[in-house]
């Protein structure tokens, strides 16, 4: 599918613009660079979806984490300090703060989902609204600027790509080789079976949502490092792209099925589409409408896959 989409744009590229889409030393790295932030979020969202949950809050959580992280990453000598007297901290502190804030939001998502049993899209929808509000309030809507060089390094060059690949690898291993992964799939596949097998469903769900939140926080850190500033409007609607990437990559919204490798491909397909639209000079409006239909198509395809396989079983 990735190859198909890329080939389509390649052909259209030669037909319409008279140049190659893919074999462009500038374009390929940029596609990967751009999707790496969405990709980090999508790795977390994939795990949530495998438990047959959903997380609509990632974009807002990333923005909130970016604001908090950036406030601890300011260099001295800037004139708009968030914390007076706190400057030039080692880079680990803002990064940790960003991830912790993300984990906190994720934990809350997970705790409400697991312990009250409400459909997960509701608490995460609430978090979508609330975290964006916190992001704006945190510095009264003003951006946070003047970040340290070591923090900005995280967003420079191909560092985001390396972080994305690292995150994808770690969670690929966790999902396929550890008890954590086994439980995640089991819960999504048959929650009752997992419960009877003695898995602590609630605790595990909280863990998965917390990890997803932490990854959204990490994405916020990378995002602000790349922009060399944090701003409350960052990451708007990124959750949609992340969910789309996971679903395009074969993760089933019914739970129990999905792979990080698929999500990485899904993220790349999205990147190719976005970049390809710009490349083909298609107006922005069409991009947006097309993205809506792509999400719809991916989910409908998932629905039919699901129907077919579950029809053969029980």
């Amino acid at each position, binding site marked *: 599918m990735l190859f198909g989409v890329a080939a389509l744009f390649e052909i259209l590229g030669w037909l319409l613009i008279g140049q190659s889409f893919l074999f462009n030393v500038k374009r390929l790295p940029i596609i990967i660079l751009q999707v790496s932030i969405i990709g980090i979020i999508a790795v977390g969202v994939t795990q949530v979806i495998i438990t047959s949950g*959903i997380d609509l809050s990632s974009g807002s959580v990333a923005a909130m984490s970016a604001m908090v992280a950036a406030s601890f990453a300011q260099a001295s000598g800037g004139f708009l300090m968030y914390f007076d007297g706190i400057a030039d901290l080692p880079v680990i502190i803002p990064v940790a703060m960003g991830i912790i804030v993300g984990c906190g939001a994720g934990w809350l998502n997970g705790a*409400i989902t697991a312990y*009250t*049993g*409400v*459909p997960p*899209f*509701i*608490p995460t*929808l*609430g*978090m*979508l*609204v*609330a*975290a*964006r*509000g*916190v992001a*704006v*309030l945190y510095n009264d*809507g003003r951006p946070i600027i003047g970040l340290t060089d070591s923090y900005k390094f995280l967003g420079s060059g191909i560092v985001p790509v390396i972080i994305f690949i690292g995150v994808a690898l770690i969670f690929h291993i966790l999902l396929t080789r550890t008890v954590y992964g086994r439980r995640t799939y089991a819960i999504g596949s048959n929650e009752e079976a997992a419960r009877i097998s003695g898995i602590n469903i609630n605790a595990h769900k909280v863990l998965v949502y917390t990890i997803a939140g932490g990854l959204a926080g990490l994405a916020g850190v990378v995002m602000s490092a790349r922009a060399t500033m944090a701003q409350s409007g960052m990451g708007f*609607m990124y959750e*949609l792209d992340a969910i789309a990437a996971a679903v395009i990559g074969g993760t089933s*919204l019914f739970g129990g099925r999905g792979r990080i490798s698929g999500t990485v491909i899904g993220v790349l397909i999205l990147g190719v589409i976005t970049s390809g639209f710009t490349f083909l000079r298609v*107006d*922005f*409006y*069409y*991009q*947006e*409408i097309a*993205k*809506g*239909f792509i*999400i*719809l198509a991916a*989910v*409908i395809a*998932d*629905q*039919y896959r699901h129907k077919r396989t579950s029809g053969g079983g029980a």
Partner: protein
Amino acid sequence: MMDMIKNMTARPLPKDTGIFLVLIGVAIIFEILGWLTQGQTFIFNAQRLFIIILQMAIIGIMAIGVTQIIIMAGIDLSGGSIIGIAGLVAASLAQTSDNVNAVYPAFTDLPVIIPVLAGLGVAMGLGWFNGAVIAITRIPPFIATLAMLVIARGLSRWYTSGKQVSFFVDDFGFFGSGATPIWIFLGVAVLSHILLTRTTYGRRTYAIGSNEQAARMAGINVGRHKMLVYALAGLLYGIAAIIQTSRAETAQSGTGLMWELDAIAAVVIGGTSLMGGVGRITGTIIGVLILGIITSGFTFLGIGVYFINIVKGIIIVAAVVADQYRHRSKRKA
């Protein structure tokens, strides 16, 4: 099926007492805070009450549509976006001829019924599309409508390339003037209440929400009914769009951004269960009023608008969690 219907009619009369008390409670809190911090009354101000209702009439009309969808165990996240495009379409056909920048210079000074029908038609069409996708492909409604959220917003940006549409024929101003929005809101509420409680339409909506399988077995054409409910909700978004456009005297592509959240919040605060099968228009109206009081109260107390978002997020979750516990305790008993 017979059992289900019996259960439904045997259920004690709708009680919105609990939620009504919450409404009173919220009002009292703001009243006290009002005297403490502003030295004046919050509630006993006829003008303010009128305004609260006026401001919430548009969200209220949306929420009535969303209520029916949620009763059917669905959800609709696309309301705000549909309002955006429907408002633009209506506005583009309601322009006066002395406007040099008319969207359709050939179609100006049209009778007001044309823009109204066009706006309603577009909204209803998109609503129907939601229902059709959900009914035919059976994908989760929140995904289908999330996609519509993106698509309809894209459509509204495409329609006039983001350009504002203003200068309407005088008749078009009627829908947003004075207390008209409130009357329309009340009319829509009463009609929908009757539809839900007295007609087969309502009976089927509740039946599908409480047990879709059973409804199917009982011979209800579930797919067609879903399309109908989503299309009706779309129609209501269209009405909201026309009032909004008329009231703002302008339409633009960003209109209605995130309004679906307010509508869903009002519905769940009003006691409609996300599990489906349970819910009332009366509850939704009270939910809308609570939301209105909170928004108005925050402005009244001079608290920043961004706090409202945080509070709204918390309220949505709290209302749903409360519903969950009601649901559970009912099951256990």
